């Protein structure tokens, strides 16, 4: 197995044989380690796994509504949205004090020459904007406390909706030659655009948001 160990001969066959297998073993091990290591960098997404999902509402525009102290709401992208956009190259958030109306465009994000327009999940006044690249959020004082409805979903409805969304996304993707994007048709990658650069992202964004 190793030089100096019983039965090891410095002969060609032996070296090729063991060398070959050791290399392959090394490759596998290395890849595994890297993957493991990367996976340990926990990102703190507002509305991500770290905060309580108490009273959170999900908007069909892939935004999350999270009630904060003082009746304000925190608006941020949901998981799928985040994955779709990855790290936007550029973003335009409404200014503080500016009014947003439900269903109307509120935020615009650019990624790789493709623009995604995020509609406001509620009507109200922006009291705070924050975060950077994929971790942006708006703090809004709503005209009225939002309730579940056609476009606003509670935890119960969300799953089936999400799955269908994912299917939608996959349908779009699989219409093109993008094997890797939907790893065997499962959940999408954390940063889709970088994983699948050559997709028509403009089309995808207009489909999804």
């Amino acid at each position, binding site marked *: 197995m190793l030089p100096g160990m019983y039965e090891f001969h410095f002969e060609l066959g032996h070296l090729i044989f063991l060398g070959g297998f050791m290399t392959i073993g090394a490759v596998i091990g290395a890849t595994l380690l890297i993957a493991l290591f990367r996976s*340990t960098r926990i990102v703190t997404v507002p509305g991500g796994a770290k905060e309580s999902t108490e009273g959170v509402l999900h908007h069909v525009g892939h935004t999350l509504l999270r009630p904060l102290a003082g009746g304000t709401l925190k608006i941020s992208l949901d998981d799928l949205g985040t994955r779709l956009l990855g790290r936007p190259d550029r973003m335009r958030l409404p200014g503080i004090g500016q009014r947003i109306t439900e269903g109307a465009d509120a935020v615009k994000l650019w990624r790789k020459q493709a623009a995604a327009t995020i509609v406001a999940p509620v009507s109200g006044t922006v009291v705070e904007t924050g975060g950077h690249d994929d971790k942006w959020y708006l703090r809004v004082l709503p005209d009225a406390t939002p309730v579940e409805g056609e476009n606003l979903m509670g935890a119960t409805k969300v799953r089936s909706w999400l799955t269908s969304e994912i299917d939608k996304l996959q349908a779009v993707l699989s219409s093109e030659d993008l094997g890797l994007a939907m790893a065997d048709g499962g959940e999408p990658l954390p940063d889709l655009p970088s994983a699948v650069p050559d997709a028509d992202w403009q089309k995808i964004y207009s489909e999804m948001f």
Partner: protein
Amino acid sequence: MGFSVKRRDFLGLVGGGAVGAALSPAPWKGLDDIAIWTQNWSWKPRLPRGPVEVAFTHCGLCHAGCGLKVRSVGGSPVGVHGVPGHPLSAGFVCALGLAGRYLSYHPSRIVEPTIVGADGQRRGIPFKAAVRQLGDWLDDTRSGGGHGSVAILDNRPGRMRSLAYRKWLGALDGAHIKGLREDTPINRLRAMLDGPAPELGLDIARARTVLSFGAPVLEGLGSGEAGSQLRGRSDSDKPYIVQIETRPSRTARGADLWLRIAPGTETVLALGLANVLVSEGLYDKEIIAQQALDLDGPGGYRELVARFSPKKVSRITGIDAATIKKVARRFASGPAVVIPGVDPGGGPLSAEAQTAAFSLSLLNGDVGRPGGVVARRASGTTQLPREGRLADTVELADVPDGSIRLLIADGVAGGFAIPTSLLERKLNPSEGRVVSLAPFERSALHGADLVIPSTTPFESIDEAGVPIDAPVDSMGLTVPSMRAPDYSVDSLRVLSMVAKSSVVPTITELLRGRSDRIHAGERGSVFDPSKGESVPLTEFKTNGDLWRALTSGGLWTDASATFSCPPFRLMGANAAIRDRLHRALEQPSTADGWAHEITLMPFGWRDASGDGPLPPVMAKLFRETRLRLDSRFATICPKTAGDLGFVEGDKASIKTSLGSITVEVVLDPAVVDGVVHVAVGPSTEAFGDASRGKGDQPLDLPSCENDACWRVIPAKMLEVVS
């Protein structure tokens, strides 16, 4: 934030640690230790440890008495080898001898005295009680019994031990019965000689022709070494071996000429050969003229053999006339040895066959002739240290039926099986009792009323036998190479405890006595196994020196004696036998009208048969290679199989009027049509057990009519529907 940084550090630490550890020797050492552990899983026996001592002795497992070199560790023999240059065995050891030491631990060894109670159940009893019981039985027997009502069955007569038996029996007017052994027939020859004859031996090594009637000449006859010598020697100087045998035995296949004789027609063939010798005048005219007492005249030998023309003989024996003539001429062309063989399982030939066979030796003038039958001088065995009346030694066959009230079976292994029915016939039907002193459950003695286990050959000192082919007398000892277990006891000690009148000496006294007398005789030479050479006896200053030599594995051999043939009767002195010779041409009537369709011929393997158990390793090897089929197999020829509707591997049952055994059919084209051969002896199942129901069922079948001969058994062979 800070948290994730910590975690990264932690991982770094772990990773670094791993790499560091891999570079240290610790994990590799660990792996090696694991390796060593896994290398010894699972179980392995612990081996004997300690210095190896080498000692010499003789093998006591049969009367061949081969010289042995024994390697021991901590008092237990771990290796047995032959002794090159040994005068008798010349380095030869048979498989049984090699593995014999394992017998002491054989599962069928008896570890306590047992008795059969009124309920017919066998149970263990204390040694003292067993001896008391034997004493009581002895008393009633003596009160009620006449001559020979007390008897000892001695598998190896002629030892000093045997003399002690005879002395003990002499006081009781008992009978000393010879167990079966391969030189039994020689006593027929002695009986044919007129007047007292010395011990006789066969000088096979120097013979020109060996005429063997089914004797295992090439399978370890006599010293065993003889056979190997015969095989080993180049064709030019090795005797021409004629094997007269029905079974395709290893000897038959290896012999120069194999006469496949029809079952039970040896007498006819012998007389047929005599016919050729006489009619062609090939016999030793001088000796016959001077010494033959019954050649001519009415009912004389000449008249007898005249009726056995080769043509007629050929019809009965199935051997063509030309061959018979050829063999007779070859036989007459020089010194020859005739061996009426005793099969370890099939027993002896009929008395008349033995007589007829030996008449050929006499015709050929081979008695007293080098390369023929030579005489051995008695040496120190005739008288005992203390004088006393000796009981006569008789053949088992000659013991009157129902005469024995108390039969004591000596412990030594004979190697020759005896049918249960034969032993039972000799016992008194009403109160015949059997006491076994055997260390193992022995086939013929399975029903013994009382068993007092004695020692095995490797545990006790005794005399090694003198093989049939030894031209001179000899004395070698079986020096113990293992400790005898506490539950075993020497047979003489048992006798001394129940002896009322006479004092029984210990075996050591007896042997020392003979040794001293040999020393006084100043004859012969002594072989030193450690040096591998012999020195004249005269070089041993004191009798102590000789005794020391013998007790360290030495062998004393007598100087050869010359002996001129006395007057003799070619048909023997026994009228009954003579009469049967005259009726030899009549078809043998099948016993009690039992309509038989096949002839069962039991046989035994020379070194692994008879009534003893088989060492586990032999049982295993014969089982795994099928090299020797045991009593579970029956060999027949394809034609017979076809006629009876058997194919190889069938289960069959062989029936006689006395019982039946179940066997597996094996085909061999060399077997005679209408004959089935079944081995007698320990089964190779389990560890080679010879006890009841495992080993020797074939010998439960013969009824042993006409003078204790069970070679040819009329039987039926039926299919067993499973």
